[in-house]
């Protein structure tokens, strides 16, 4: 196992200086706004998503405090309803996906041995849009105009006549705005992973984390349009009097639900899948071996990505559709458990054959397995229509999806925070503090959400701002509330741990864990150009195999140093055969400008300043036109004959 790869670079000193000159961004205010470096953008995604996480988490604490006792009057129903809607919406759209995309942004180019994403400017643009869309939505809360229709915003409750005011306009426009960022990032991930892999990295040598990000990105490409169409129609219904969801004029309220869940169910996996990729990335370093059954895990991810599109009706099992339709979706919902089972047992087998090094990231992975498996059981139960009809929309389902999402996403995210913190910040975290954080978080999580299974079965519906003192409700709710505070303290310790590491942590070596993927073969934190020499990949675990490692040192060739410009390598889609070098774009303010214009556009739509919106749209169009304007080249280089 290598820990010295980066200290003996294969590139000469002149090459390194040239690379530095080409890629480094001098620290200045302008460069702060114009950066296109995937590592800076990735860090920003992480920090911003964490900020939204704190806001959504505080909303949850307020809700839990209200629910500590029956008939509590701490929050008014109007406040509570906005808080739970913002909690759900923000956790799903503004925390989970962006956080995981943040890791993707930072890690994918490093893991595949590239110098940046395929479209660095688009990447910067995506971040700004995400930031602005998040602020756009949260800004409504202090004005009491936050969305209040639940995160799935069922019509006709969310129609103008039932929810007047800006609430749901913030929701529809905010999500449409945010969708631009998610789509842009997904296209970028797919193209980056297809075209920028280091030479030699054929499909069977792609790290599982990258597979997970690509599968996720494909899901986004095909799922998000359904949400966008849905939101656009709701906005038109509310603002311009169309009748898509109005049964009195030929519309249909179930159309909303179908479209929403065609997006919504894949979205569950959009959140969980990259997190599963994190687990597959963390395990090898702490078990000292590769994940068992690489091809099976790839299969599991591919099949989940596909089947997730065919299970949406299980969110509508109580709407009274024909049972035979339910049968089809019930079948798919049942079978989707199998690929997840394969992954779980592949990880268990990995742990059973390797040597466990019980550091904090592995602790979180173990916490993930325990929690996610429990969430998986209840998930399989929901596939059965009869059982689903009894427990859906009760606290049982609240328990279920928190087990799945906290188990399936937050535990891996926290594992990732500790695992890649040395790579991202160049500093080591405090191990003991991390263990405390884990145990508090783990205990708090189960204390909060396990009782929800119980009072769900005891008949307590979800989304109630208060409840009567039925037997079994009051006491268990109090337990949940106590647990939520414990959970919050655990997360606070994570935050303190990160701050401590950044300020006081030991400097991190390039490869503190003995990891297997390429990010561990370069500096911590990586140089702006990632790799002095782009690697030639010879196996699935390039940092563990000599041939791949020496390709970056003694075996370095000029065509993989590429110091003459801001360049990286393009390879073929399936086998990673070298194709050509490409020029990468420089830092630019255009992404920020474009995102600002879009912010003006959506704000203008929100307040019905339509002329302003038209003006902003023109700015958008002209910014894109300038952005893509072809650079002038001599005719000879272009190859013009006439």
């Amino acid at each position: 196992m290598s820990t010295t790869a980066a200290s003996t670079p294969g590139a000469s000193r002149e090459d390194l200086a040239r690379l530095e000159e080409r890629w480094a961004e001098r620290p200045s205010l302008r460069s702060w706004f114009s950066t296109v470096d995937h590592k800076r953008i990735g860090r920003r995604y992480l920090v911003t998503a964490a900020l939204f996480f704190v806001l959504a988490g505080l909303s949850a604490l307020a809700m839990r405090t209200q629910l500590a006792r029956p008939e509590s009057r701490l929050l008014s129903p109007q406040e509570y309803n906005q808080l739970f809607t913002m909690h759900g919406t923000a956790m799903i759209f503004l925390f989970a996906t962006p956080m995981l995309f943040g890791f993707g942004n930072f890690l994918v180019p490093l893991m595949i041995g590239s110098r940046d994403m395929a479209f660095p400017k688009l990447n910067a643009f995506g971040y700004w849009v995400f930031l602005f869309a998040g602020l756009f939505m949260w800004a409504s809360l202090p004005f009491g105009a936050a969305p209040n229709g639940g995160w799935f915003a069922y019509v006709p409750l969310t129609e103008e006549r039932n929810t007047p005011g800006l609430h749901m306009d913030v929701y529809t426009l905010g999500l449409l705005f945010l969708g631009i960022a998610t789509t842009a990032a997904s296209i970028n991930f797919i193209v980056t992973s297809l075209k920028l892999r280091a030479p030699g990295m054929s499909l069977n040598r792609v790290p599982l984390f990258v597979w997970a990000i690509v599968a996720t990105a494909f899901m986004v490409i095909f799922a998000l349009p359904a949400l966008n169409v849905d939101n656009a129609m709701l906005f038109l219904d509310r603002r311009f009097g169309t009748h898509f969801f109005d049964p009195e004029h030929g519309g249909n309220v179930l159309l909303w639900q179908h479209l929403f869940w065609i997006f919504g169910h894949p979205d569950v996996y959009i959140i969980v899948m990259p997190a599963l990729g994190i687990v597959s990335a963390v395990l090898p370093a702490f078990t000292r071996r590769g994940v068992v059954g690489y091809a099976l895990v790839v299969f599991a991810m591919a099949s989940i990505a596909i089947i997730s599109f065919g299970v949406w009706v299980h969110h509508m099992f109580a709407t009274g559709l024909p049972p035979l339709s339910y049968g089809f979706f019930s079948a798919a919902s049942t079978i989707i458990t199998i690929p997840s089972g394969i992954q779980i047992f592949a990880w268990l087998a990995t742990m059973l054959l390797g040597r466990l090094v019980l550091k904090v990231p592995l602790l979180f992975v173990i916490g993930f397995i325990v929690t996610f498996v429990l969430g998986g059981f209840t998930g399989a139960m929901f596939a059965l229509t009869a059982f689903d009809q009894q427990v859906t929309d009760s606290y049982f389902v609240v328990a279920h999806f928190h087990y799945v999402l906290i188990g399936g996403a937050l535990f891996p995210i926290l594992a990732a925070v500790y695992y890649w913190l040395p790579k991202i910040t160049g500093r080591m975290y405090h191990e003991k503090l991390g263990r405390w954080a884990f145990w508090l978080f783990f205990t708090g999580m189960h204390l909060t959400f396990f009782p929800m299974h119980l009072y769900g079965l005891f008949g307590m519906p979800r989304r109630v701002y208060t409840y009567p003192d039925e037997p079994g409700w009051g006491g268990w709710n109090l337990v949940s509330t106590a647990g939520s505070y414990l959970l919050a303290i655990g997360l606070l310790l994570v935050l303190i741990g990160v701050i401590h590491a950044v300020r006081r942590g030991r400097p991190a070596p390039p490869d503190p864990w003995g990891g297997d993927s390429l990010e561990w073969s370069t500096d911590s934190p990586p140089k702006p150009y990632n790799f002095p020499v782009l690697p030639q990949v010879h196996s699935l675990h390039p940092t563990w195999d000599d041939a791949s490692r020496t390709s970056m040192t003694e075996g370095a060739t000029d065509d993989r140093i590429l110091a003459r410009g801001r360049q990286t390598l393009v390879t073929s889609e399936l086998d990673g055969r070298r194709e050509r070098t490409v020029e990468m774009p420089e830092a630019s303010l255009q992404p920020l400008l474009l995102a600002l214009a879009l912010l003006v556009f959506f704000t203008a739509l929100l307040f019905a300043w339509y002329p302003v919106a038209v003006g902003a749209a023109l700015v958008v169009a002209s910014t894109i036109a300038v952005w893509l304007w072809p650079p002038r080249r001599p005719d000879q280089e272009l190859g013009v004959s006439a």
Partner: protein
Amino acid sequence: MSTHPGPRARLAGGLLLWYAVLGGAIAWAVHLIAGWSVDELTCAGGSERVGALPLRTAIGLAVVLPALATVGALLAAALLWRRTARTPQGVEPERRVGRSRMLAVVGIWLNLLFLTIIVLGGVALIVLPPCQR
């Protein structure tokens, strides 16, 4: 077996590989969309016939045809698996064969899985009346 297939054979082979990997997935998607929409929309219209066909037969077709397509993809994946069992001598060793081998494994599993789902859907069709609410 020819060791130097022409460009058309190569194109066909390359496409066959993707049929082996994704054929079952696409067949299942067709099965699901057809089965669900024909069922829900025909029942919503208050009829139990699709054109000349009884509803059950129509949905039955939406089960059987995709199932057959999936079996085909499964066979193709099995063929790919056999063809990549040994590294052939000579041209371009290892990498692309290894890659295709992995895709074959993924394809076999995907097709098995989708076949299972389609068959379970068929069971539901036998057990449940199509328009009962």
